[in-house]
């Protein structure tokens, strides 16, 4: 009777209009959702009982109007009002209602716990999966797309679990209950209801069909407006510099008006639906009252029946409206759940490596043994078929043997790359964008796997090394710095979670970051927010160098690590960089040739091939591509 509840929406709330996508396999998705509630299945039983109690109590309570009214009527006609019986009936009615209210509270309370716990599990599963996916996944899916698994899709799913499903169930119970009682009270009047329901369904269907056209148009208009807003706001400064404000306003007025046209039409359809179903139930109420009264006059029906039937007609249409409202959102939520599960079902990064990275110490005879703490010596731990293990010291000897690679099958990016980096050597890659510089480093840390040729690390095929251990042995400083929300110290510590404060400061000093950090309001405890916007690009890059420094890995990969630092500052951190690179094998990619000058070997890449290699002086003497690049005859892009 009183189930007209629409709780304030969860985070995000009204989120414009979501496209309606149908789930491919609703049954399977529901089964899987139930799987997430496995631990709470016994609680679900209580939820069902609660819903049953609350819905049936509402129905039964309404039915009770009949005997109560009739006993009053009887009292009137016979002249003797049986107070005791009357009170008994009221008490019984009160009990039924009390059970109903208790049931309603019980199920919504339990359902709250179940749904939040289920959502937590799903979220954690999704996130954990996300972390284990290969880089390829992130290449082929936009951030926005993946984010919406966590926002839109989980929100709709949460609404469905906490409200949609229980309401659907309780509405169904109510409809069945009400219908049963109505049949008992008066089959004739029930017929009238059925006719009405058919009429409403037809009307709603007609309107729904019309509205989908408008909703589609609205969707397009929203896309156009949002796209324009994004583009103009992002280019706001250019707009200002060119005094283009008036033009921007004019165009916006146009597309904004278009959105209004589409939106007001679409919303009209949506907002007249409620009054239509509601008032049809009133028409039905009026007809029922008249016919019922006629029947009462004819003596076919008593007044109590009319009264309770009238209440029923009101409580019959409400759940129908609710189901039709919930239906779409449940379909939507299931489609969202399917998308979430699709992500969870993505294949994780494969890892068949058996060789692991361990701290080691040397016996006097030079053989290695495993140590439990950081010793400065690393070793590869090799399990042998006979169950024993052997150790090889990690030196940082990296070799490529005829490596062929493409991100997609159609397009080869690297064509037969062979190279070696002996321990402690600095190898530089230069070449234009798309030549394959970054790809080479992406293969070393196995962001992608090599289909052809092989890469060895200290003589071990890197495919045999456990991925996480391989990566721990490689320090990376990327062009896009990416800092995390947290303090400066925490960000540096990302390289080595158990680094002491001294280690953090030492790393920062090495990267020449200490001085600007000391000038921050809270020094090392300054909280950086959303990707470190309160730092300059150069400062962020210094932090990411410090992050690599604290990790202290045997091999270092610097991918345009100093591109955002001006040459003077770069000169300042050069010393730090030199100390950082000392004793390590280093791969450097740099746009600016001054940074690669002192490398042991420079590889000039073009179209996935190494076209020149040698030291700076060698290459200049060759007067080839490197020479041209260096003298500025070619555009590096």
């Amino acid at each position, binding site marked *: 009777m009183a189930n007209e509840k629409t709780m304030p929406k969860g985070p995000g*709330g009204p989120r414009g209009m979501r496209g309606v996508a149908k789930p491919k396999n609703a049954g399977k998705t529901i089964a899987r959702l139930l799987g997430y509630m496995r631990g709470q299945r016994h609680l679900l039983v209580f939820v069902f009982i609660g819903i049953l109690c609350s819905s049936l109590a509402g129905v039964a309570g309404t039915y009770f109007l009949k005997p109560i009214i009739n006993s009053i009527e009887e009292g*009137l006609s016979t002249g003797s009002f049986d107070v005791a019986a009357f009170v008994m009936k009221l008490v019984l009615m009160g009990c039924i209602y*009390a059970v109903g209210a208790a049931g309603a509270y019980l199920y919504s309370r339990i359902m709250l716990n179940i749904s939040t716990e289920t959502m*937590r599990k799903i979220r954690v599963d999704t996130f954990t999966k996300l972390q284990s996916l290969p880089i390829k996944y992130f290449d082929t899916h936009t951030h926005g797309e993946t984010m919406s698994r966590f926002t839109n899709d989980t929100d709709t799913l949460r609404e469905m679990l906490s409200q949609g499903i229980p309401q659907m169930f309780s509405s169904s119970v109510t409809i069945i209950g009400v219908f049963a009682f109505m049949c008992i009270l008066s089959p004739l009047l029930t017929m009238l209801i059925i006719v009405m329901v058919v009429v409403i369904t037809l009307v709603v269907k007609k309107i729904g069909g019309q509205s989908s056209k408008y909703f589609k148009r609205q969707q397009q208009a929203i896309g156009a407006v949002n796209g324009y807003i994004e583009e103009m706001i992002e280019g706001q400064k250019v707009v200002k510099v060119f005094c283009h404000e008036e033009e921007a306003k004019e165009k916006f007025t146009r597309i904004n008006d278009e959105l209004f046209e589409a939106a007001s039409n679409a919303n*009209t359809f949506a907002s007249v639906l409620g009054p239509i179903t509601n008032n049809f139930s*009133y028409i039905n109420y009026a007809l029922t*009252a008249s016919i019922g009264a006629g029947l009462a006059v004819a003596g076919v029906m008593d007044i109590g029946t009319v*009264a309770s039937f009238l209440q029923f007609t009101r409580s019959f249409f409400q759940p129908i409206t609710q189901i039709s409202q919930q239906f779409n959102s449940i379909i939507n939520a299931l489609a969202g759940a399917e998308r979430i599960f699709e992500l969870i079902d993505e294949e994780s990064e494969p890892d068949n490596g058996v060789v692991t990275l361990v701290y080691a110490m040397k016996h006097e005879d030079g053989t290695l043994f495993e140590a439990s703490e950081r010793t400065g010596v690393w070793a590869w731990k090799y399990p042998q078929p006979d169950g024993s293990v052997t150790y090889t010291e990690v030196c940082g000897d990296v070799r490529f043997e005829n490596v062929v690679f493409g991100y997609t099958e159609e397009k080869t990016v690297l064509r037969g790359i062979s190279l070696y980096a002996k321990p402690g050597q600095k190898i530089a890659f230069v070449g234009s964008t798309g030549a394959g510089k970054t790809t080479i480093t992406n293969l070393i840390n196995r962001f992608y796997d090599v289909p052809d040729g092989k890469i060895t690390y200290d003589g071990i095929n890197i495919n045999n090394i456990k991925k996480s251990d391989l990566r*721990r042995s490689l320090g990376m400083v990327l062009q896009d710095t990416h800092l995390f929300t947290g303090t400066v110290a925490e960000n540096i510590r990302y390289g080595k979670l158990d680094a002491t404060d001294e280690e953090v400061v030492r790393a920062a000093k090495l990267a020449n970051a200490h001085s600007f950090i000391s000038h921050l309001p809270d020094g090392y405890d300054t909280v950086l927010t959303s990707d470190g916007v309160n730092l300059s690009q150069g400062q962020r890059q210094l932090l990411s160098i410090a992050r690599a420094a604290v990790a202290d890995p045997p091999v270092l990969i610097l991918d345009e690590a100093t591109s955002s630092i001006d040459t003077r500052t770069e000169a300042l951190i050069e010393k730090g960089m030199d100390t950082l690179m000392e004793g390590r094998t280093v791969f450097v990619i740099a746009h600016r040739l001054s940074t690669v000058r002192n490398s042991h070997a420079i590889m000039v890449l073009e179209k996935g091939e190494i076209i020149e290699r040698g030291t700076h002086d060698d290459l200049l003497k060759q007067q080839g591509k490197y020479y041209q690049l260096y003298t500025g005859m070619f555009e590096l892009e």
Partner: protein
Amino acid sequence: MLTKLLKCVGKYKLPAVLSPIFISLEVVMEIFIPLLMAKIIDVGIKGSGGISYIIKVGGLMVLMSMLSLIFGVLSGKYASIASTGFAKNVRKKMFDKIQDFSFANVDRFSTASLVTRLTTDITFVQHAFMMVIRMMVRSPVMLISATVMAFSINSKLARVFLVAIPVLACALITVSIKAFPLFRQMFTKYDNMNSAVQESLVAIRVVKAYDRGEYEDEKFAKAASDVMDAQRRAERILIMNMPIMQIVMYACIITVLWLGGNLIAVGGMDTGELISFISYITQILMSLMGLSMCFVSIIMSRASIVRICEVLDEDVDIKNNVEGKTSVENGEIVFDKVSFSYSKDKAKLALRDISFTIGSGETIGIIGGTGSGKTSLVQLIPRLYDVTEGNIYVGGTDVRDYDLEALRSSVAMVLQNNVLFSGTIAENLRWGYENATEEELEAACRSAAAHDFITAFPDGYETFLGQGGVNLSGGQKQRVCIARALLKKPKIIILDDSTSAVDTATDKKIRDAFRSELSNTTKIIIAQRISSISDADRIIVLDDGAVNAIGTHDELLASNEIYREVYESQQKVVE
């Protein structure tokens, strides 16, 4: 705050007023229906009315419900016109306001936050507005008229409401007040969780490179648990609404039946009246419930309203001098003891006490380390920011005494973060000069060394660029941006590190073109590369917000340490 927003209803005032009127009429119809029903029972069945009376009143009831249907539909229609129209106006007003923002205003809000305010927040407010003109009208009207009806039927019985309504109202208010801060906490936790996802998504390569997957998992698991706990705490309170509502309603029904039954027994009331009275109970209490829901969602949209008003109320700190000079005489620039701070805080100066004079037509190079204030300095010339202290004169007049548009169309600036817009190359170029002829476009592109690569595209100048000019390389983008600036035929052109991705040979070509074709235009070039500025008439060396030295390449090389350092770090070893 609200009044300002409500002004945005604008020409949709009529639908905004009609909707509540129609919804009130709908309510009135709905209210009369139970009363007529009572008449049917009391007069038609039990009284002397008979079938003819029943048909007459029944017909009236059907008629009223039909009317109610029409009113309801009309109200829905007008409500959606009013609310989408309102949203349209707010969106427009915000967009226009942002167009008037100065750089400083734009900096204060981040781009992303401005976009959210213009999209998501407006959607929220639109829904809230719809809620206000429908539910917020419907519920009180229903509450009042149903109460009046109940009193008119039987004032003694209606006293039940004098207890029930305050009790329920208090309970609902208490629940809302208690739940609200908890919901706020929940939203914060929720934002934290989402930004954790966003962050690890953006930085996935770092996460993987450092093998921090598990660490991130743990961090996220904690964030997810926090969300769960916060949500439970908040909703645990909110779900009290239902049982409270049910208990009050059921208690009312039973009390009314008991008292009513007794009244009927002594002849103080009719059965039909009792039945309709019960209908009113439902209507009254449900409308109270609806009202509380309205309040909750309005409170929840309050954050959005605040965010929108922040934009609308933002003081545009660079005001156009409407009576200012409308033409710029020449390209002479004078900085007179200029100090500048982004935050207007004199303790945090980005530029300190800068004075120099640039003659019209001169070529000036500016060099300095990251954060030395190069960009800040040039942005003051077209008055993208206002100085904190001192004066800047362009063409002999203080920049603040110009009409802004006149000043800015005479000062072309190629920004560091170049933005091209979706559209053809020609369309992008015409930003500089709307009525430029083909020849003018080509001439500008030749000067910017862009003509050749543009004509190499199959569609030439009609090549379509995606958002942000994604299909051009960095160097090409920079050259199109320079051409766009040249089309303004400015008195002063400023290149803020705008040839960094262009090779040195092309860079030189552009500079040569500048020299021969823009001899009367003052040229200011910020560069990292010494070669880009070494042939300038004079070079300004900036260090930590102050002018370190001014001179020619040779002078500086001889006398300035910073300049020499930069030079040496880039020195070529070309034998």
